[in-house]
């Protein structure tokens, strides 16, 4: 019998290759496991992975190919919102669902009317298992104000990155609504490595927390330089942070920092998967790997629920299922194709590892 064909696309080259490699390796490992365990619906799984170079047009090409030529029944990835939004029209045309791992822009799953500035309908074939920028920004701001009792926050963000800008916007909003004050807002660009000038301004503003909505490379470099300058504010980050590299690069400087995570680091499954992955591929397992893991679980569940590899049936099944993933219980909403009620895990960096602090959802 024919195998069930599934696809993954994402960056294997270019600036964000580090994230894509994590995802694709994880999915490869999982597919191997599935096949060893007898496959899905009794059929083997065949995986196709394509590089997008982090480029939206490449993502479209890869999607066209993976659907039209390789005939996959669903797609996982890509690992950035820009690419996810761009492939929406192809998905719609070919009626194939995509479950994105870490694309946090609300526009990934919802149509947006630029003229009125309002979200309109849900995109029928775009799904995601991560939370969105507004949600995460709000969690970070709420945690900072309510739990850390911070009243003065500084933001240092990557102006050239959509993820970073998104978090910034909503953090700023929520923090101010709660009655806090943004005392400094500074920007850098993705390729920067030197941040002291902006940090000097932040130092002068003397914030309680310094919010760093960026990826771990910059977070580590910024933390180091901030501490060198004598900034004592609590550092706060988003889900771009989780990576072992963070420790290697700036363990000392990051002691006592918090970040919003998708998963509870105390979960034993977490440690098990991590060891397995790292021994197999000899690369550190980042958050992307975990998200890919859960996206894969979700897809498998949907195929099983649909009982077929028909792409439309799978797309329909995606909102019907509830999956217990590493990053929490995943139930995709029919209205916006986002995971429902997913809570952030606030994680603290202490000593040599992560320390689970609390679950923090927007209800609080």
């Amino acid at each position: 019998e024919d195998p069930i064909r599934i696809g993954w696309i994402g960056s294997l080259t270019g600036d964000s290759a580090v994230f894509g490699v994590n995802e694709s390796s994880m999915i490869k490992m999982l597919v191997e496991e599935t096949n060893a365990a007898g496959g899905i619906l009794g059929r083997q799984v065949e995986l196709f992975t394509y590089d997008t170079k982090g480029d939206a047009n490449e993502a479209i090409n890869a999607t066209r190919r993976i659907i039209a030529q390789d005939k996959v029944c669903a797609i996982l990835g890509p690992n950035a919102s820009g690419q996810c939004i761009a492939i929406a029209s192809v998905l719609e045309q070919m009626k194939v669902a995509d479950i994105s791992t870490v694309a946090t822009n609300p526009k990934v799953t919802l149509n947006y009317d630029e003229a009125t500035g309002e979200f309109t309908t849900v995109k029928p074939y775009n799904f995601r298992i991560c939370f969105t920028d507004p949600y995460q920004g709000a969690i970070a701001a709420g945690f900072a104000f309510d739990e850390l009792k911070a009243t003065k926050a500084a933001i240092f963000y990557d102006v050239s990155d959509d993820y970073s800008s998104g978090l910034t916007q909503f953090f700023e909003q929520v923090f101010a609504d709660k009655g806090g004050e943004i005392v400094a807002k500074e920007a850098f660009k993705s390729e920067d490595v030197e941040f002291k000038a902006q940090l000097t301004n932040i130092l002068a503003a003397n914030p309680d927390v310094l919010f760093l909505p960026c990826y771990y490379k910059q977070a580590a470099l910024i933390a180091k330089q901030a501490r060198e300058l004598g900034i004592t504010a609590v550092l706060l980050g988003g889900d771009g942070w989780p990576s072992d590299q963070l420790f290697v690069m700036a363990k000392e400087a990051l002691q006592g920092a918090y970040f919003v995570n998708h998963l509870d680091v105390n979960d034993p499954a977490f440690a098990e998967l991590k060891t397995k992955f790292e021994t197999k591929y000899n690369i550190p397992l980042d958050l992307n790997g975990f998200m890919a893991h859960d996206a894969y679980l979700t897809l498998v569940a949907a195929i099983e629920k649909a009982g077929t590899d028909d792409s439309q049936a799978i797309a329909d099944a995606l909102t019907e299922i509830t999956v217990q993933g590493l990053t929490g219980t995943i139930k995709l909403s029919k209205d916006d194709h986002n995971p429902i009620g997913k809570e952030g895990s606030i994680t603290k960096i202490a000593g040599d590892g992560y320390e689970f602090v609390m679950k923090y959802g927007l209800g609080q």
Partner: protein
Amino acid sequence: MSWYYIEGILIQCGYVLMVVLGLSLLTGFAGLFSFGHAGFMAIGAYMAAIGTAKWGLPFFPALLMGGAAAGVVGAGLGSMTLNLKGDYFCIATLGFGEAVRLILENWEYVGGARGVSGIPWETNLNSVLIACVVGTLALMALIRSRHGRNIIAIREDELAAQMSGINTFRYKMIALIISAVYAGIGGGLLAHYMTYIQPKMFQMVKSTEYTIIVIFGGMGSVTGSIIGTLILTFLPEMLRSLDNWRLVIYGLAVIFIMVIRPRGLMGGMELSDIFRLPARRRAARMAAERIKSMEDAGAGKEAQR
């Protein structure tokens, strides 16, 4: 290969070609290097996208508006920088491209780094085909006129061109503006193909990719630009199943072609020349013989002795 997939690549070729044609005029014919064409593309893309998505304009006027906006900005850039020479002009354009991106990233009206979404999906094979045919014919027409020849003269020897009464600044400006318009239209096509744009799509690497195509295809050849676009767009797709090795091979291929054909694929020739070639070669050979026999009268006489 499935047609649906190929169609996608062809559409990509289409909008890339618009930008490359423009760049070909500037780099291949006027001899000016630009690392900032992604900036013009961005301007065209955003203008057109705002036109359709925000202001509800039809696709075609929005596209032209994008081209026009890029042209206007090109004129502004040119008036400041066209007096700079070679690499200095080149970094001015490089800075320009990055500056455009930075402005877009900071501009909330167009979504900052998060970009503009909800752009209608208007770009298809037909629309890019029309754009490319019109673009190519117009460019060829321009080049085969006194204006085009003046532009070529600048590339060959700017001082000698001035001495021939060519207002080199004006013609460099014309080349830059037209080039920017092409890039702007290419950007508009891109926006309506992606249905989503963000500043990240217009990084400097894009500009260098297009420059690579122009030179790979051969300076001063429109045909070369077309063939270069096709090859260099299709190549990475052909290699797609190699995952992260494909760009390694892409890099090698670029070097390889440059080394074995150091004037690019079509350097200075058009496809039509290839058909004319035998006749031309003959004429050139005859001329070479004549040059030789331009010979001192002595030759014949000595033979007689």
